């Protein structure tokens, strides 16, 4: 029996309500497309071993997020694991592994919303993995042969995965009009620049351990994945450019409003389908709120009462039978 609390929600799992439905849908579509590609590529790369390998590693990453170290007093650093998964398994399997982890976290532990899951998968599984891959393979090639090359590449890959993912997260929140971009972006960026250091340190140390024990597991994979390299590079570049642009805009909300312009126009079109109906009472905000409150309370208490009656009847029946 497992006696541990579920991992605390991390500051990158967006709950429902903090990204708009339109943004959620857009990122759901993007994530589904990319994960579909990953499914085919992973099978091609790993063959029959893919299910046991990815399944068990997903469990390891999920559980590994419980590993912590004290940073300051009560706060502690944790591992997200996208970089480690990428370095150990390669980019396409890592995308599937991280997607599994993030999905189950949302479904079962409400760590991140269900509508927002598409965006969360995009940030943590897709950006996290592709940015790690770009940074790691690039740096490793440059630092080839140096003893500390592995640690540095791992550190920077892990740091970048967290940092760039947080930029995407901030932009999604800003585009949804939930937080002004000139607040969300710097806030997320600075917090995750720090969190990324923890991820980097843990990742580098984990790689050092694995290298000392089983060097063969860290050999560069035969044949890189150019698609991911290009895609990851573009994403990282785009976010790096967009973010300072968004946060330096004098009135962050205005910039967001411009973006929302085309989004809200779509919405008002839908609303216009409903005729300008003013039911007596509904147009009066206070009255309709009170009415709704009364209805709500009646419904809830009605159900509670009904259940209590049913329980009492069941208890009476079973005691009369015994």
């Amino acid at each position: 029996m497992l006696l541990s609390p579920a991992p605390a929600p991390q500051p990158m799992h967006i709950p429902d309500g903090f990204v708009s439905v339109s943004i959620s849908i857009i990122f759901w579509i993007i994530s589904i497309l990319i994960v579909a590609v990953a499914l085919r590529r992973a099978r091609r790369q790993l063959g029959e071993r893919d299910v046991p390998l990815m399944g068990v590693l997903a469990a390891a990453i999920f559980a590994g997020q419980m590993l912590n170290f004290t940073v300051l007093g009560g706060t502690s650093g944790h591992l997200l694991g996208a970089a480690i998964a990428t370095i150990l398994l390669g980019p396409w399997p890592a995308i599937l592994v991280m997607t599994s982890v993030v999905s189950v976290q949302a479904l079962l532990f409400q760590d991140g919303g269900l509508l927002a899951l598409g965006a969360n998968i995009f940030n943590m599984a897709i950006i996290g993995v592709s940015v790690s891959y770009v940074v790691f393979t690039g740096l490793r090639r440059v630092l080839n042969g140096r003893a500390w090359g592995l640690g540095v590449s791992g550190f920077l890959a892990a740091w970048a995965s967290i940092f760039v993912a947080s930029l995407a997260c901030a932009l999604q929140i800003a585009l949804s009009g939930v937080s002004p971009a000139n607040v969300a972006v710097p806030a997320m960026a600075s917090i995750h620049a720090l969190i990324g250091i923890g991820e980097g340190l843990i990742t580098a140390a984990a790689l050092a351990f694995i290298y000392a024990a089983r060097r063969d597991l860290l050999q560069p994979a035969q044949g890189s994945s150019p698609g991911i390299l290009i895609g990851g590079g573009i994403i990282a570049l785009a976010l790096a450019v967009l973010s300072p642009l968004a946060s330096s805009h004098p009135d962050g909300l205005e910039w967001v409003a411009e973006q929302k312009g085309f989004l809200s126009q779509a919405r008002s079109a839908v609303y216009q389908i409903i005729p300008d109906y003013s039911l007596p009472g509904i147009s009066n905000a206070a009255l309709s709120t009170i009415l709704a409150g009364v209805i709500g309370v009646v419904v809830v208490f009605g159900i509670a009462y009904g259940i209590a009656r049913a329980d009492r009847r069941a208890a009476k029946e079973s005691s009369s039978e015994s």
Partner: protein
Amino acid sequence: MRSMQPLIEIQNLTYHYPDGKQALNGINLAVMPGEKISLVGANGAGKSTLLLHLNGVLTGEGGIKVDGLALEKANLGRIRALVGLVFQNPDDQLFSSTVYEDVAYGPTYQGLPHSEVQQRVQAALDAVHMDDYASRNPYHLSGGEKKRIAIATVLSMQPQVLIFDEPTAGLDPRARRELIALLHELPQTMLIATHDLPLVEQLTPRTVILNRGAVAADGPTTRILRDARLLDENGLC
């Protein structure tokens, strides 16, 4: 003259799992300095759970005192230096790339100066007869070697009492023999949870039987191990 107060004193210890199931049911036990005691019982009797209470990993109701110190949150730091817990699976305790680093974890965490750490590591490795293993990678060691390194990682903290959870589990006959010889040599007070009845007979003059979270018997090993009915009642044969 040192007063003969118990090194570990457990009074009426009770513990429930989060799901409500009872794990420990009013345990009373006293461990005197220098004793070597076996803790035996069927699987699920509560042996491991009891051990985890002795250094504060788990917290139940009732009182535990270590060397006169009450076991509570404020004292955990000191108590973990007094009570050395060696877990069953060495892989769970070894996380460095060299034996030295693993054995050095304890004293390093304590904040001891570098020279002191070095001395302690050397002494601990000597005690387990692995003095030339300091730069080896624990991952590549055999099961028996890993077990001894795991013991060294605890010895480097110079605890007053050593607690073992199934020390001979999974060892081949030779490694087992060597481990028992090592445990015989070590001077510390010991509490050993085990299924290995021959070990119990060889090593520990006193045996405590645990059954369903309560103490079912506590006395001289020779008497207890000869009592076939007692062993049978408690799932030990």
